[in-house]
């Protein structure tokens, strides 16, 4: 055997190896999510949801024979950090897809970066309407319900359960707080509710009793609030101390009472209703299996963020299989209009604005001191909650 043939054989073998390797190469998904700081608990749920789904898909043979590999980066809930980390994942790690951003600013900035890199991203957490309305991007998909869907679902439930309710609004005095109240007010008035007044308290208020006089004078049957975190704790416990919770239904944004602050609110959270895309108490076989697997792996129940992130992997898998690969343009086309199954029910990705359409739930909190449950008290079909497509860019 001459030297040339030897070299030639070696080259052929190498080529063969390289060819074989590319088919079995893992599909890489970058996850830019807050792993430190205030938003770390949300990032933790995102991570758990994605890891659980990935483990299940990989155990069942992966996507078209390729395993999924997740690459995590901490974005510190700061768009400036998120874009830097996302750029690293796109350009150095060559990820095929990216997800995980939590605050809306990060999602918007990383979405623009994805456009400039010719890649696709999806958010599983951000609920700012802008992401799929006036600031929509052809490279950004949202698999979770946006703020508009949440308030529409809550308004639908309110119209059915308490027709022509007299509603009072109490929000935190900052941009997001005011826009959340405005969105719900518009949705509630459309379904027949009467507004009796509104008040905005500074973020981080210690004492809410100064607003209770106005609240009582307005004689509402329903109070809507968009406070969050410790503000909700103080608001609801103070209302309870003043005996204002009697004959008053409290409803609010999905972030008002969460697993993080419900312990501190205690019994005062009992009866609180919100519109949301998921509850661990959903009574379907898919959800029961999901919750059991999640509990087994992480010793805690999934929340909205964990469930939406879990569902994303199914969405990605279905889209890659439909597109026959991870190239951006075919993948985008495959994602548009795609329907897929999640623990939350079937979701459909609307082609016009890349917003997932899903059944929404009215969830009531049952708090009896020790254990807390998020009971599903109403279901609003996806079409009723989604609202018009307001994206004009594509």
């Amino acid at each position, binding site marked *: 055997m001459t030297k040339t043939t030897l070299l030639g054989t070696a080259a052929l073998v190498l080529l063969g190896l390289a060819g074989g390797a590319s088919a079995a190469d893992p599909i890489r998904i970058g996850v830019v999510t807050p792993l430190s700081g205030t938003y770390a608990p949300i990032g933790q749920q995102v991570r758990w949801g994605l890891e659980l789904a990935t483990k299940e898909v990989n155990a069942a043979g992966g996507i078209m024979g390729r395993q999924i590999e997740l690459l995590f980066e901490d974005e510190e809930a700061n768009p400036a950090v998120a874009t830097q*980390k996302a750029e*690293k994942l796109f350009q150095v790690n060559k990820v095929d897809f990216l997800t995980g951003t939590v605050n809306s600013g990060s999602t918007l900035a990383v979405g623009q970066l994805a456009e400039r890199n010719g890649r696709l991203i999806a958010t599983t957490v951000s609920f700012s309407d802008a992401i799929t309305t006036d600031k929509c991007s052809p490279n950004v998909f949202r698999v979770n319900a946006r703020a508009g869907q949440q308030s529409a679902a809550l308004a639908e439930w309110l119209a059915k359960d308490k027709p022509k309710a007299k509603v009072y609004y109490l929000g935190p005095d900052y*941009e997001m707080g005011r826009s959340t109240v405005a969105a719900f007010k518009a949705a509630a008035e459309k379904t027949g509710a009467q507004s009796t007044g509104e008040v905005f308290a500074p973020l981080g208020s210690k004492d809410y009793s100064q607003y209770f006089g106005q609240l009582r004078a307005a004689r509402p049957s329903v109070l809507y609030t968009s406070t969050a975190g410790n503000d909700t704790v103080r608001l609801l416990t103070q209302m309870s101390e003043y005996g204002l919770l009697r004959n008053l239904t409290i409803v609010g944004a999905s972030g008002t009472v969460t697993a993080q602050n419900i312990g501190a609110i205690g019994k005062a959270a009992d009866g609180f209703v919100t519109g949301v895309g998921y509850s661990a108490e959903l009574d379907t076989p898919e959800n029961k299996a999901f919750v059991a697997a999640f509990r087994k792996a992480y010793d805690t129940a999934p929340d909205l963020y964990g469930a939406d992130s879990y569902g994303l992997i199914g969405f990605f898998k279905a889209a890659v299989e439909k597109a026959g690969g991870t190239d951006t343009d075919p993948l985008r086309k495959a994602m548009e209009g795609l329907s897929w199954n999640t623990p939350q029910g079937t979701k459909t990705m609307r082609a016009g604005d890349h917003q997932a359409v899903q059944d929404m739930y009215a969830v009531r909190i049952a708090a009896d001191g020790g254990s807390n449950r998020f009971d599903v008290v109403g279901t609003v079909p996806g079409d009723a909650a989604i609202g018009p497509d307001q994206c004009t860019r594509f």
Partner: protein
Amino acid sequence: MHEATTLRTLSDPGRAGPASRLSRLAPVHWLALAFLAVALGFAAVAWATGNGFYLRLATEALIFAGLAMSVDLLLGYTGLLSLGQALYFGLGAYVSALVLRDVSPSFWLAMGAALLSGVLAGLIGGVIANRVKGVYFALITFGLAQVAAKSVYNTHALGASDGLIGIPQIQVGFGPFSLDTADPLSFFLLVLALTVAAYAGLAYLMDAPFGRTLAAIRANERRVPFLGFNAWRYKLAVYVLAACVAALAGALYPMLRGFVSPELMFFETSGNAVITVIVGGVGTLVGPVVGSLLLTALRSVVGSWTEHHLIVVGVIFMLSVIFLRKGLVGALLARLSRRNGQGRSTP
């Protein structure tokens, strides 16, 4: 230390002829030149290997080095600790973003507008902050930045908490030539040139009578009037100068990343700049640049390994405060001068 510096500059001009001008360069400037050579070498390697990400990361580090330099002007040369320098950085970034997006995609217009906003905001902030001294100065600067950050955070027209996206990538024109900010190498070289220009200009100014007066204020502000200088005026001037440097650095940020967000004005940004200056070397101007590159690289690498990267940065900060009192560059300079056997102190 300051007496030694003054003596040197007083005795130097007589001794050194024009031929030995280069050898007369202070060691800190040699370090700056060495740094420039390393930066150019890095650019060549990154360009040859087609590594756009690292070029853009280095560009970001240089942009934040501009912010750190402005902190060093106040802290290292005048003895004023600003905990709110991100206010001017963020202001420059927002002004530049708005100009590029809504007025005209012109580099020079954006930089000009940012500079103007830096002068105006610096004058207002300087008049307020310079009413007090010491820890109160630090608190006032912190408070001013918080007020500005919260206002932006709640202003719908400025994108509120979401910030502004859609800042276009632009062509930077120099007469017949132009370069594209979307090209990692060109934009890196542009920002490097601006950083070097800022360093040279500020180092010259700090060696001039203006800088000497600032050093006198740092040493003993109450005795400055006895020399015939109005300390308040000099403090206001250096505050405005630092605001302008920070605003110009901030103006480059949206050109690199295509967005601005209120986080750029948050305390995290101001605090990081102070850490950068202290790790790099207070009162050296080149220290903040080296510190920024080092910490940015470290955050990027360590952040990929563990979510506890803040602990790593914190430990490095504490170690450098304990063992390298003058930062990396300060320690390097001390070693250099010891080897040369000259008792030269750093400016």
